[in-house]
């Protein structure tokens, strides 16, 4: 009894676990139960039960409700899908003027909006793309096909790569200095001589539309939410779900609404990239000291000046992190949206991965990562730029960058012209190095992969077999063995113990949604893969973070490494693991671990760093040694922040698990991928996305509530 009184929490948790395991043992696996492989649920089987709701028939294998809940929400995806089609094809027909046929026609409102949006986005992308690569669609957009047939000279020629390379180097120099200029130049030259120019510029034009638009919308909505409580309340749940929604899942409804192509990719990228921008804008604006706002008011700012000259610059740090996130998401989506027909490096990357041409994939992946890092650094430098008021500059000094650029344009054009004579009969390398006509290291990498495979095949295979047979399969079986009721009790109990009745209800609702969807088993598999990844990631991340923290330089170095790794599009992580482990669950899990270790490491270092110096000194004066200081002072204080890292780790892991479906896993991701090629997949894809988001939100809710309580307890704000 004494013991229970001393540790009431511990006892409660123990009790919860006992109930959980008791339920697990009490409820037997039904004899008819088996994990449903893909496609099997479409087969009509006399053993299936069915019910009809809202006119939709849902068929399922019925089990004891304690074992698996019936999929009472099974009608939801079909209903979403039908509603979407209704909206697109029937709802609110409006009249519009058709240029081609010169008459009024009717079309549903949503379809019309979607068409207009599509036309606008396509125009923007084509405009930038044609400046970089040449083409005639922009001209056609202002004139007509007949006109361009008569005036073939009007076709945009595209910039020679030399000009783009020198131009970006000059821009980088103006923004930051020699270092970045050198980097920019090297990246561009690399892209060009390795024959990735065209796809790179296609991707770049995609990013140059998606990123600024996402930034503007995110900032705008963030400001609106900051100013109005009502807007914030309306936005908040959407933001929360979008934060944990896998990017794959958003693709499917977009496919229905906007069709296939770059424009759909841009729109969907915005949907994914805007929420973090909004959140960080709100966060930054909230953190501004009230006196700064008052100082702005007393300086006589009107509302507009106050927002754009005082508030936003003051919140710059958080807003910059937002920009950083936008760029990151954009590059990530540049690859993922290749699934819905975006052109560029992402498409090549997917194609190469599909053909198991690791070398090509590596080259495309490297290009996209390099451009991502370059844009990231440039945007940071741009935001930190200062003006000098006191220099009495000459005309040359003031305009030297523009002069240099004009000079490079002339030199570039001359070079390209000279090139036409130099490379007569073959490609004009001074204008554009054609795709796959540059130097390629693909063969080298492929041979390398082959060599690794030949040399280490036995060991890799042995490791692979061991991991799958002795670790993964049993773990997966354990997860699937959990009765639905037991899982529910565990999750809700945890919610109650951590956050009281409110938390328990929220978590219960989220879990029930997944349990009542037709994909509970799949969700369990997703959870098992994510759990495996998260556990290993956290062990690695916390250890590495703690070790690096011991030295100031290594800590900064590690944070830098995290920054760079975070800039890589998530898909890129699949390349090296496929090199080593081929198409197996092991590959996915290793990619998950690498990807999810980033936040674990980062938050550990940041958490340990945030421990006040005064406490360090106090501990040192109490005579602790390094280890005691770590365990008694630093860990307890940094723990809440590290838990936020865990939260991020879970989200990252879930994302990667879902992306891993591309390699072939049997979780929710597989169905999302399948929904992509299904004409009626929108509802399924969306519901699946929500399921994944809810898994993330369950942990998010539990961890956040715990952290808040803990921080309050420790008096850290």
């Amino acid at each position, binding site marked *: 009894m004494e013991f229970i009184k001393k540790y009431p929490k511990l006892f409660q948790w123990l009790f919860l676990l006992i109930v959980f395991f008791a339920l697990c043992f009490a409820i037997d696996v039904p004899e008819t139960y088996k994990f449903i492989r893909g496609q099997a649920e479409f087969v009509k089987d006399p053993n299936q039960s069915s019910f009809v709701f809202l006119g939709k028939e849902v068929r399922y294998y019925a089990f004891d409700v304690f074992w698996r809940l019936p999929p009472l929400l099974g009608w939801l995806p079909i209903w979403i899908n039908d509603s979407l089609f209704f909206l697109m094809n029937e709802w609110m027909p409006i009249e519009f003027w058709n240029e081609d046929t010169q008459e009024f026609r009717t079309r549903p409102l949503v379809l019309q909006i979607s068409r207009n949006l599509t036309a606008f986005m396509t125009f923007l992308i084509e405009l930038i793309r044609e400046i970089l690569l040449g083409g005639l669609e922009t001209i056609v957009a202002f004139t007509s096909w007949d006109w361009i047939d008569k005036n073939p000279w009007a076709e945009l020629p595209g910039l020679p790569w030399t000009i783009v390379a020198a131009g970006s180097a000059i821009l980088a120099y103006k923004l930051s200095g020699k270092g970045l200029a050198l980097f920019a130049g090297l990246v561009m030259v690399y892209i060009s001589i390795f024959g990735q120019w065209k796809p790179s510029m296609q991707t770049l034009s995609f990013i140059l539309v998606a990123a600024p638009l996402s930034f503007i919308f995110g900032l705008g909505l963030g400001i609106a939410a900051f100013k109005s409580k009502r807007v914030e309340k309306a936005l908040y749940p959407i933001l929360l779900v979008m934060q944990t929604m896998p990017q794959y899942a958003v693709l499917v409804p977009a496919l229905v609404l906007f069709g296939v192509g770059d424009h759909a990719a841009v729109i969907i990228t915005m949907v994914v990239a805007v929420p973090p921008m909004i959140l960080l804008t709100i966060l930054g604006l909230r953190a501004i000291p009230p006196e700064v706002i008052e100082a702005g008011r007393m300086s*006589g*700012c009107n509302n507009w000046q106050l927002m754009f000259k005082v508030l936003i610059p003051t919140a710059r740090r958080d807003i910059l992190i937002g920009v950083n996130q936008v760029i990151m998401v954009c590059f990530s989506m540049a690859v993922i949206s290749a699934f819905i027909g975006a052109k560029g490096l992402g498409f090549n990357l997917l194609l190469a991965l599909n053909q198991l041409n690791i070398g090509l994939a590596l080259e495309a992946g490297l290009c996209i990562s390099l451009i991502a890092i370059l844009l990231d650094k440039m945007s940071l430098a741009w935001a930190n730029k200062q003006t000098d008021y006191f220099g009495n500059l000459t005309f040359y000094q003031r305009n030297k960058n523009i002069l240099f650029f004009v000079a490079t344009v002339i030199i570039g054009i001359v070079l390209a012209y000279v090139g036409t004579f130099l490379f007569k009969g073959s490609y004009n390398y001074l204008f554009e190095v054609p795709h796959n006509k540059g130097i390629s290291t693909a063969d080298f990498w492929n041979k390398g992969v082959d060599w690794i495979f030949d040399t280490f095949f036995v060991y890799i295979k042995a490791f692979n077999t061991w991991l799958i047979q002795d670790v993964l399969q049993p773990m997966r079986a354990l997860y699937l063995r959990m009765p639905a009721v037991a899982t529910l009790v565990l999750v809700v109990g945890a919610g109650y113990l951590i956050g009281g009745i409110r938390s328990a209800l929220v978590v219960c609702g989220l879990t029930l949604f997944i349990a009542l969807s037709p994909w509970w088993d799949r969700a369990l598999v997703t959870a098992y893969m994510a759990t495996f990844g998260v556990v290993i990631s956290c062990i690695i991340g916390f250890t590495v973070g703690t070790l690096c923290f011991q030295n100031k330089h290594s800590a900064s170095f590690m944070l830098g490494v995290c920054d760079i790794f975070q800039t890589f599009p998530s898909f890129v992580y699949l390349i090296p693991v496929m090199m080593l482990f081929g198409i197996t669950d092991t590959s996915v899990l290793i990619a998950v671990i690498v990807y999810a270790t980033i936040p674990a490491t980062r938050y550990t270092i940041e958490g340990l760093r945030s421990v006040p110096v005064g406490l360090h000194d106090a501990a040192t004066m109490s005579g602790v040694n390094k280890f005691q200081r770590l365990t008694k002072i630093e860990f307890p204080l940094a723990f809440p922040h590290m838990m936020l890292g865990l939260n991020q780790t879970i989200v990252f892991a879930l994302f990667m698990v879902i992306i891993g479906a591309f390699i072939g896993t049997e979780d929710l991701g597989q169905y999302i991928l399948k929904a992509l090629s299904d004409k009626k997949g929108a509802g399924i894809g969306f519901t699946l996305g929500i399921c994944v988001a809810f898994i993330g939100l369950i942990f998010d809710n539990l961890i956040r509530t715990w952290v808040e309580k803990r921080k309050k307890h420790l008096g850290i704000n």
Partner: protein
Amino acid sequence: MSEPVIKCEAVFKIFGENAKKMLQESNGNVDAKTFQENGCIVGVNNASFEVSKGEMLVVMGLSGSGKSTLLRCISRLTDATGGKIFIEGQDLLQLNNKELIELRRNKMGMVFQSFALLPHKTVIENIAFPLQIKGIKTEDSISKAMDMVKLVGLDGRENYFPRELSGGQQQRVGIARSLAVEPDIWFLDEPFSALDPLIRKEMQDEFLRLQDKLQKTIMFITHDFDEALKLADRIAIMKDGIIEQLDTPANIVLNPATEYVRKFTEEVPREKVLLIEDVMDPSTNDNLGDLKVLKDEIIENVAEKILTQEKSVAVIDNNNKIVGSINPAKIINTVFGGRKNNN
């Protein structure tokens, strides 16, 4: 006498949802306790006073006494719940947004406790900010800001960022910024409270030097009674939103209106605050010594001279006319006597 620059008539500031309604019902008799029971917090309770041109009014009070709230009502950073505020005869609460912005751009300057500098702007940009907001050309605003930099003695640091400056230097920037538009009215909200004692003294002297030169109409907020005595023409002492006493430093020290005010004055070294005029005997007799002291002299400065005299000492005004007398016993009584027990 000309019109007061700042004039407050029964100003109330009450926080809470039903503040306005409750204030109307209370007919101007606001009791903080009853309001608090109804979920309202009284910030400023019936404040009426005037500040005339070139005068420095110091509002003194402990934290939570409502002094900052009062200042924010007068600068309309928050809207007063009741009462009237006139700035140079203009009814502040009737101004629309545009007029208010005009007023702030031309007439008002404010200095903040935490400096409130814009972190992304350099010293010169911070100082030029109010000018640029007004729409003055970059070149002109920078050259004007440069004058301000010189005025507060920060030459050579104009391209530093606020984070690269010490607290005292940052507040110099804050002061320069608030003066850049050459305002008539200068609000200072605990400007020196965040500074070290030594720097604080230096900044107070600097501030007096500036005021001597500029002759602004000033409202100065502080929680430091000594600072208030040192700077003020008049002091308003606030407690729980109520102005307990508003008077010259000498009168507050000599005649504290309430028990609360008296507690502050107890520890004050009177010889440093009071002038000869405040303690002299206005009647003159013939039996005066040779020494003459100015009536505006602080006691501390002349005490030694007076105490060496045996007879009473003549007190003269600026025109060398005898206006009263003072005897050494009176000085001793003022400095050492009458602190704890009597009064």
